[in-house]
């Protein structure tokens, strides 16, 4: 199928482009000129085309927890948010620590996925933190990184080996930094609000202790460390220093960490319960600064679907996590671009070219001719309310339900095919 998008403002940070032009799509790729008449012509007036967003941190829950999400429902939700590539974390049931599991995800994504799905493999067998997984075989099967997300590697020795061993495959180690001995049974940020609410706290230091350790191990080994969901001022500063030293350290954060604080927990609503927890205004400001000065490379969702039953439980018992695919772009636009934290081009870079570079995704994250035709079309004037009944994810655990947004995706193209439009929904 050939598509022509006419007169659209193209923002492609990879090629430092920001101008009104036409985009040609043929054979699933972006091309410099068309060899035949396009079947579809899209009027791009007043719209913006950006490379399809790459979400480097999500949980598709498939296999094993299909009551929360499946590859089918998760990718439908993603494409609605302008996301064309998702990385899925390996803490499924069973965990993704073997090649057949990677193949299962890739096959299922091919069969019923709406966007590109790139699996992340485990660092250790069973994510138990004691023995390295067969990372070389996992790499051959198609993983883009390794992580024991949610069950962080407690042993410094294993983490050292992981960073050392992955080096030869050029695979980043994504670290969910949490000293579980310090965070223990905590359920929210430790501070004034946890004291008032009588909920057990998770100190910022339980994250920062591990960020420090892992940066030191990256220095020791020369391995590529990618810090997951940075949530504290201290972590931002540690990453900043590591980058100054020239270490192979990269980092990501999520919209909730630059949008919300632990003040939101006053009503004990479990839709504000996530790990790492919402922190304080000071942390929010530090994260924005870290995004601005390039300390934080990527913005991702940590899309973590949970059923209504689970999230209706008592705050202590309800699981951590919120969904995020369908609010990523609008939150970035409203909280970062409109508030002049980042330019539109800087913001888009953190969801396109930066993740593509960090995880060596050839042909993605750019609209240069020759790239895969993954495109998100944005309308910054598109106003809408984020409603529960409109959510495509199987789970509805979002603190942003009811929020009014101005600006969002209106069309998503994956591999040269229109997969979703705001007018017609999933195609």
């Amino acid at each position, binding site marked *: 199928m050939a598509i022509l998008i006419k007169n659209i403002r193209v923002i492609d940070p990879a090629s430092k482009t920001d101008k009104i032009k036409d985009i040609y799509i043929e054979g699933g790729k972006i091309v410099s000129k068309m060899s035949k008449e396009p079947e579809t012509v899209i009027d791009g007036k007043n719209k913006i085309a950006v490379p399809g967003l790459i979400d480097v941190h999500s949980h598709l829950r498939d296999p094993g927890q299909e009551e929360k999400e499946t590859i089918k429902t998760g990718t439908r939700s993603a494409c609605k948010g302008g996301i064309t590539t998702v990385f899925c974390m390996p803490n499924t049931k069973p965990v993704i620590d073997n090649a057949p599991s990677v193949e299962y995800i890739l096959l299922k994504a091919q069969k019923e996925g709406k966007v590109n799905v790139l699996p992340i493999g485990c660092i250790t067998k069973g994510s138990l933190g004691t023995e390295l997984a067969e990372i070389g075989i996992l790499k051959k099967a198609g993983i883009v990184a390794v992580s024991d997300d949610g069950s962080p590697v407690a042993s410094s020795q294993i983490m050292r080996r992981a960073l050392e061993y992955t080096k030869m495959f050029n695979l980043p180690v994504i670290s969910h930094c949490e000293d579980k001995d310090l965070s223990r049974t905590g359920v929210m940020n430790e501070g004034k609000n946890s004291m008032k609410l*009588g909920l057990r706290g998770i100190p910022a230091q339980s994250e920062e202790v591990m960020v420090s350790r892992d940066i030191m191990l990256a220095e020791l080994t020369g391995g590529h460390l990618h810090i997951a969901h940075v949530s504290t001022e201290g972590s931002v500063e540690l990453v900043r220093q590591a980058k100054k030293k020239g270490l192979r350290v990269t980092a990501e954060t999520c919209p909730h960490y630059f949008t919300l604080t632990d003040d939101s927990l006053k009503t004990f609503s479990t839709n504000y319960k996530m790990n790492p927890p919402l922190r304080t205004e000071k942390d929010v400001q530090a994260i924005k600064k870290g995004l601005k000065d390039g300390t934080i490379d990527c913005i991702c969702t940590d899309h973590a679907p949970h059923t209504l039953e689970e999230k*209706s439980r008592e705050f202590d018992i309800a699981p951590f996590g919120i969904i995020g695919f369908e609010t990523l772009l609008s939150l970035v636009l409203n909280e970062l671009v409109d508030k002049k934290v980042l330019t539109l081009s800087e913001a888009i870079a953190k969801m396109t070219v930066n993740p593509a570079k960090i995880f060596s995704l050839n042909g993605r994250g750019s609209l240069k001719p020759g790239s895969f035709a993954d495109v998100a079309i944005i309308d910054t004037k598109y106003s809408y309310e984020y409603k529960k009944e409109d959510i495509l994810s199987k789970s509805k655990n979002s603190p942003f339900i009811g929020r009014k947004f101005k600006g969002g995706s209106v069309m998503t193209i994956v591999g040269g095919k229109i997969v979703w439009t705001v007018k017609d929904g999933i195609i």
Partner: protein
Amino acid sequence: MSFNRKDLLGLEYLAKEEIQTIIETAKPFKNLFTRSIKKAPALVGKTVVNLFYEPSTRTRTSFEFAAKRLSADVVSIATATSSVVKGESLIDTGKTLEAMKADIIIIRHTLAGTPEILAKNLNASIINAGDGFHEHPTQGLLDLFTILDKKKKVEGLKILLVGDILHSRVAKSNIWALTKMGAKVRVSGPSTLIPKHISDLGVEVFYDLDKAIKDVDVVNILRIQMERQQENLFPSVHEYVELYQVTEERLATAKPDVLVMHPGPMNRGIEISSYVADSPNAVINEQVTNGIAVRMAVLYLLVAARNKQQGKKNGNIN
């Protein structure tokens, strides 16, 4: 004076005037049930459920007496906390009770925020009888009532809370009530058991009990849970006793008419010496008596607010 709430979830959320209303309402109830005929018909036909997910004798009994003396029908349900994790959800349990036409549900739970869950999901009025480390509003109110009863005022009084402030819902509710009423509140205990941000609530922190207790008008001694020692929050009971037991000698440095309070149950010989517990300054048993009066007041005011609301819905003049 008015009280227009559906629920009593915590003292943080109440205005000074609302707290005063409860205290004023409690006074005649105390006179009532210290007579030989202890009953009033205010809650005839109303159904009150005690839903206790945590073992409790005194609070549950106190609420039961309070409801019975107002002529309500009362049922008490004690549920093991383990079934919370496995079994029926709290909301379903609440809805079941509501289907049985419960007007008021009194909940005690090991987890913070559980009364809020019921309040959000049910039409019945919810009273928090202690939720995790969050709040225990009726205990805060009965402590305030007791101080007012003895001292006639609270404003300007030096009131000391001793012990595990971190895990104490009693301390939290006391602090909210007392600071709103203008008391000078101090807390004392090991630094591991005093949250870093407690001073944001307008209280003064003393790690040294000898300094803290000097010249205070009231000392309220909190129960120390033995399992805190296993969490390494203090090295040994022996050391805790050495540093934080309220003893005869320590009490002697407080004001001569100091009130000694304890929410119970007491660990005699640990946080409080027997001498202090039995001293003429102790009002520990009166706290228990006052608890019933305060709980009667809370039940009465919530039912009155419900009746008013019901009247509005039915279009009646009320």
